[in-house]
């Protein structure tokens, strides 16, 4: 097969844009799972919730999806805190978070998906906005706006979160919990409260990520599953706790997936991310930038 250069370059550019979006999707899990050891595999369900929130406001009020996503973050923050409360009282406090905690999040994922099916059906839903459709042409490289905008906003969000975690008091407390919760308790700070805020932030990112997702592609309830592998692959490859590592991993996955889809057909793309994850877990569990 003759690989034409412009096809390859376009695939790589599309992959980088996709990777930017993947960073927005995985940043929440990097906080909750990477930093705080809370294996929230229900994250895709919350992202889908964000999708449908953006869909509804777009359908009935004609609101811009990204704007909705940002406006919804406080509600998702509260939801996240509530989920953590429940998780804390039911599992963390009792000390048996392993299988039961996982089963809890697995059940949550499933209940979220089935509820969305019951409410919205299994039809594909999409939003309307002025930037869905047109693209910018730079020579023979196409930059579709519906990929470019999510990528830009996602990088912005990750940057802001990075600033928040390293500069603000609570952000640094979150990093401290991730390093040593017991030591933090000795400094008279409550890891539980800090974790609650952190999980709140982690779920709040789902509102924004969900609005990006429904801009990029039409959405139906079961597509969330495809993201579990991507999210955790990126989180693990990125070295669990570092945002820069996560960004690199997200871009890498985006590019590999996009090249696979371009040259071998999109039906192979899911295997790429999960294959990535399996190899990452088997060969290098410490991640690309690991300790």
């Amino acid at each position, binding site marked *: 097969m003759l690989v034409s250069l412009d096809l390859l370059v376009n695939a790589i550019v599309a992959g980088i844009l996709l990777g930017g979006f993947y960073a927005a999707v995985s940043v929440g899990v990097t906080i909750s*799972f990477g930093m705080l050891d809370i*294996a929230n*595999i229900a994250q895709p369900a919350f992202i889908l919730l964000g999708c449908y929130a953006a869909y509804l406001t777009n359908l009935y009020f004609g609101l811009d999806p990204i704007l909705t996503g940002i406006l919804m973050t406080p509600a998702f923050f509260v939801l996240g805190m509530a989920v953590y409360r*429940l998780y804390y009282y*039911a*599992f963390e406090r*009792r000390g*048996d978070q*392993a*299988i*039961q*905690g*996982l*089963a*809890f999040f*697995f*059940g*949550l994922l*499933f*209940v979220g*998906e*089935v*509820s969305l*099916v*019951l409410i919205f059906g299994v039809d594909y839903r999409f939003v309307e906005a002025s930037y869905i459709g047109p693209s910018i042409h730079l020579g023979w490289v196409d930059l579709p706006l519906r990929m470019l905008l999510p990528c830009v906003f996602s990088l912005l969000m990750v940057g802001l979160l990075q600033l928040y975690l390293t500069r603000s008091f609570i952000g640094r407390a979150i990093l401290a919990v991730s390093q040593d919760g017991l030591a933090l308790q000795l400094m008279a700070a409550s890891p539980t409260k800090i974790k609650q805020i952190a999980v709140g932030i982690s779920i709040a990112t789902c509102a924004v990520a969900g609005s990006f997702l429904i801009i990029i592609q039409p959405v139906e309830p*079961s597509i969330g*599953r*495809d993201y*579990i*592998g991507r999210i*955790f*692959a990126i989180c*693990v490859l990125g070295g669990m706790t570092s945002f820069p590592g996560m960004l690199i991993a997200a871009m890498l996955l985006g590019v590999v997936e996009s090249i696979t889809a371009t040259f071998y057909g999109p*039906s*192979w793309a*899911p*295997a790429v991310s*999960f*294959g990535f*994850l*399996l190899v990452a*877990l*088997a060969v290098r*569990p410490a991640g690309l930038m690991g300790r």
Partner: protein
Amino acid sequence: MRAGTFWLIVIAVGFAFIVVSRLYLTNEYFYFAGYVVLEYIVLSTAWNILGGYTGYTNFGTGAFFATGAYSSAVLHKLPALLHTTFDWTIPPIPLPVMILVGGLISGAMGLGTGYLTLRLRGVFFAIATLALSIVVQTLIVNWDFVGGSRGIYVIRPAHAPLGSSYIQYLFTLMTVLAVAAVGIARSIEGSRLGLGLATIRDDELAAEASGVPTLRLKLIATTISGGLMGMAGAPLPYYVTYLDPTSSFNLSYAVNSVAMPVIGGMTSWIGPVLGAILLGTIQQVATVTISSALNLLIVGVLLILFVIIAPNGIVGLVRSWRRRKEV
């Protein structure tokens, strides 16, 4: 009770079950519904060997189950393929052979998964199994011989052995599998292997330090667990007569096989059986009377409620109730 006695009892119960159902049940629907419940007994018992005894959460039930189903689909097409390409004529392969082959292939896959992932603990293992099921599904979707994403039609043979209708034959086979699964689970529980697995569940590091060959035991557990799941999946093509990736890799198999042991109780063989009978029956009834989407919601909600309120399942509830009565 010795393991041998237990085997005799389970076999007797299974045999009695088949005979009684043959004598008194004329409605074919019972066999269709009963088949699913029995299938879940096998799946949840198999899951529990790895999840309950060893403490490793497997979210990839769908992968092993569908591998068994697709190996049967391949064997089903094999005689025709050999005939057209090599002009060899072989008779159609009987279903029990397919079940054994499906079990072997899924068992081998379990062994492979074990090698690849069992150095991973807890959450990482769970996520890896979830990933495995999507990778296998993608392979099947892109494999044209078994129909790819379009699916494949499997025509049942005109005559069923044992002088019965075909669904009764499937029902009988699944009862045999359920008996075998429960017997195996109970034998493991009381054996040195079971003790070793329990030490891994309680503290893997300590187990390894005291000389338990943890990796080997875990590989045995994944192989048995995967093999049983594959055997449960092998008759599926003949049950549904139309096999497609979306429904055979359905996440509901994974959710159910996690939910049933969790709800029943993960520490002994009776837990998954109780959970499967209870949840399986509720789902069959709900599918007929309410709707099939809602019955999945019931499973999810029950799973969440049980892990929060009764983390040791029904068996745990009964035990603590008994203890309270003694005091």
